[in-house]
């Protein structure tokens, strides 16, 4: 299946108000989603991720160009028809009142039920299927107000699924979740696209998770430049660096992590390999020290010794040696050292 389920044609997005010239967020966007594909939209705050999503789902008019959903323009498609092809999950926490998870997912059947909203057996089957797909079948009879943020977000995805769309768009679905629940939600969405052939587009601030789970990344930068491609391709071609490098932060292509630029406090010699050396290096970098491997006669030197399961860090400074039993103490001592040296 190579048919695009959603594609844009020379799309320009932004805000148009009468009297004021239009504020253009991004221009000439050519984007597409394939069935069974999970795409993460990432980019710095204020780059226009929400504007792009709102335009793609038909909630905001484009400045020019079109968004086609299975060949039909989302901005002219009747809302009931659109609702059968595309559903959304929003960031904000909605208080739905006294509804069970089942009732909440049942709201997703809206575009299929008659005027009274009566649920046919087929609708009930879809509701159960949707809950099952997100691993929330056991929550069905629980009240939504009693659910944790993680559980609630799963139920919201099930609700979107109950609309039986081809495309699900999620605006920062992991924003309020802790790490395990973020990972779980991404896994659920990945499984979903694999099993059902839905196309899933989600915006997120969680770059690491996006790099690990997306089939494709849309990277929207401040100036309205949009890079698309496989996550690893975007790392290798430097797109990530140019998008996020800024005050006090650099993207490390090697590790795929961001480094916090600390103030330069001095140099430290550190020898060795393995787990303890790795984390000692991290601690020293955090304190703002440049770490040299193999005695280059820096004014400071750290040695790690293991003795009967105890680990000690000894710090040599001007022929004085102090021993610490934790990295916390070591870093505190280094801070004091640099303060006496510099001021």
């Amino acid at each position, binding site marked *: 299946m190579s048919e695009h389920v959603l594609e844009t044609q020379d799309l320009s997005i932004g805000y148009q108000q009468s009297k004021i010239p239009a504020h253009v967020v991004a221009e000439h966007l050519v984007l597409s989603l394939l069935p069974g594909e999970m795409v993460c939209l990432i980019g710095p705050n204020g780059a226009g991720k929400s504007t792009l999503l709102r335009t793609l789902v038909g909630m905001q008019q484009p400045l020019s160009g079109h968004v086609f959903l299975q060949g039909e323009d989302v901005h002219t498609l009747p809302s009931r*028809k659109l609702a059968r092809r595309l559903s959304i999950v929003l960031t904000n926490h909605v208080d739905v*009142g006294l*509804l069970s998870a089942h009732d909440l997912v049942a709201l997703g059947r809206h575009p299929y039920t008659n005027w009274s*909203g009566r649920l046919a057996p087929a609708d*009930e089957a879809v509701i159960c299927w949707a809950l099952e797909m997100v691993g929330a079948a056991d929550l069905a009879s629980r009240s939504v107000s009693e659910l944790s943020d993680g559980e609630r977000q799963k139920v919201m995805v099930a609700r979107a699924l109950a609309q039986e769309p081809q495309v699900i768009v999620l605006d920062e679905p992991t924003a309020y979740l802790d790490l395990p629940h973020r990972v779980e939600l991404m896994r659920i969405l990945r499984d979903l696209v694999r099993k059902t052939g839905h196309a899933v587009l989600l915006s997120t601030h969680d770059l690491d998770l996006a790099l690990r789970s997306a089939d494709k990344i849309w990277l929207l930068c401040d100036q309205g430049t949009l890079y698309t491609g496989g996550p690893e391709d975007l790392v290798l071609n430097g797109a990530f660096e140019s998008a996020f490098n800024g005050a006090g932060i650099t993207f490390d292509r090697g590790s795929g992590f961001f480094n916090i630029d600390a103030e330069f406090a001095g140099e430290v010699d550190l020898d060795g390999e393995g787990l303890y050396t790795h984390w000692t290096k991290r601690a020293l970098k955090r304190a703002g020290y440049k770490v040299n491997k193999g005695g280059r006669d820096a004014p400071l030197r750290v040695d790690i010794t293991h003795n009967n399961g105890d680990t000690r860090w000894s710090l040599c400074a001007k022929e004085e040696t102090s021993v610490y039993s934790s990295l916390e103490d070591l870093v505190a001592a280094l801070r004091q050292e640099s303060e006496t040296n510099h001021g």
Partner: protein
Amino acid sequence: MSTHNAARRQAQGLSCAQPRSRAPLLMLLGMVLVGAFLLDLATGSVMIPLRDLLAILTGGTPLKAAWADIILKFRMPKALTAALAGAALGVSGLQMQTLFRNPLSGPYVLGISSGASFGVALVVLLVGVTGSTWLVDLGLAGDFGMALAASLGSASVLLLILLFARKVPTMTLLVLGLMFGYAASALVNVLLYFSVAERIQTYISWTFGSFGGVTWRQMWVLAPAVIFGLAVAFVSAKPLNAFLLGETYAHSMGVPVQRARFGIILSAAVLAGSVTAFCGPISFLGVAIPHLCRMLFNTSDHRIVMPAAALLGGSLALVADLIAQLPGSQVVLPLNAVTALIGAPVVIWVILHKQNLRSSFAS
């Protein structure tokens, strides 16, 4: 697509919590309504035994011939009015609470009752100022004149609101309604200031609220208006459910947000406006009934709560009327005093007891 349908068919066999049926409880509420209706007919300054009451209702002859007149000419229109008004206030209060996502909303948040009050004040108090001449000559100072003035007052606020309903966001509408209300109250105050004591007395007793002023002739206006409002409201139950998630989600689920909102406001305003026109501004019921229904049924699903609000609203209005008559005595208490005095403790008890108000309207 094919994979996804297959997965769905697989799911047909899955068991999944079905919502438990609320039909028995709704039927019970229906029976309560019938019971309250009969009780309201039977009680009053003259107590009429149930056997004779049923005889009158089925076309037989009661023990005393006068009882038939009391029932058919006075108590029947009063009881019908109470049932219709209670249902109307309960349902429109529910609609407003959901639309504005606010537990303190009621039928009058849009300024409907203030408009009616202004209409009535204009008629009643101007009669005082102009020396009760031409308005009385036109028959406009009587009960029917007050109903007409109230209808015109609430209808003009209704039209203003509907004019804005399609153009401004929902929350702006709430503020607009509040402002209309303040403006109307201010005008009423000016009229009161320049009026004479006995006219003010007439106006004040209208604000107490009463189900007793509706004649059979007026019933031909009230009943169709309430039935129309209830019919539109019941069609709005489905979009109201979607509005529980907010307007953005509602739109994404294919709800025509503008049209749905217009229907909700139209029906709520017709319900509140017609009741206020004929019974005065009846407080409390419209705010309390939706809460009681949500707690009783433990759901916000409008397909259940809305019929419940109609049934419970009718029943409670009948009970309030019954108590206001002080059965066996000639004294009649102000209806609004009864609804709030009896109702407030009940609602406080329910809220403290059930503690699920927070779930319905968590911040």
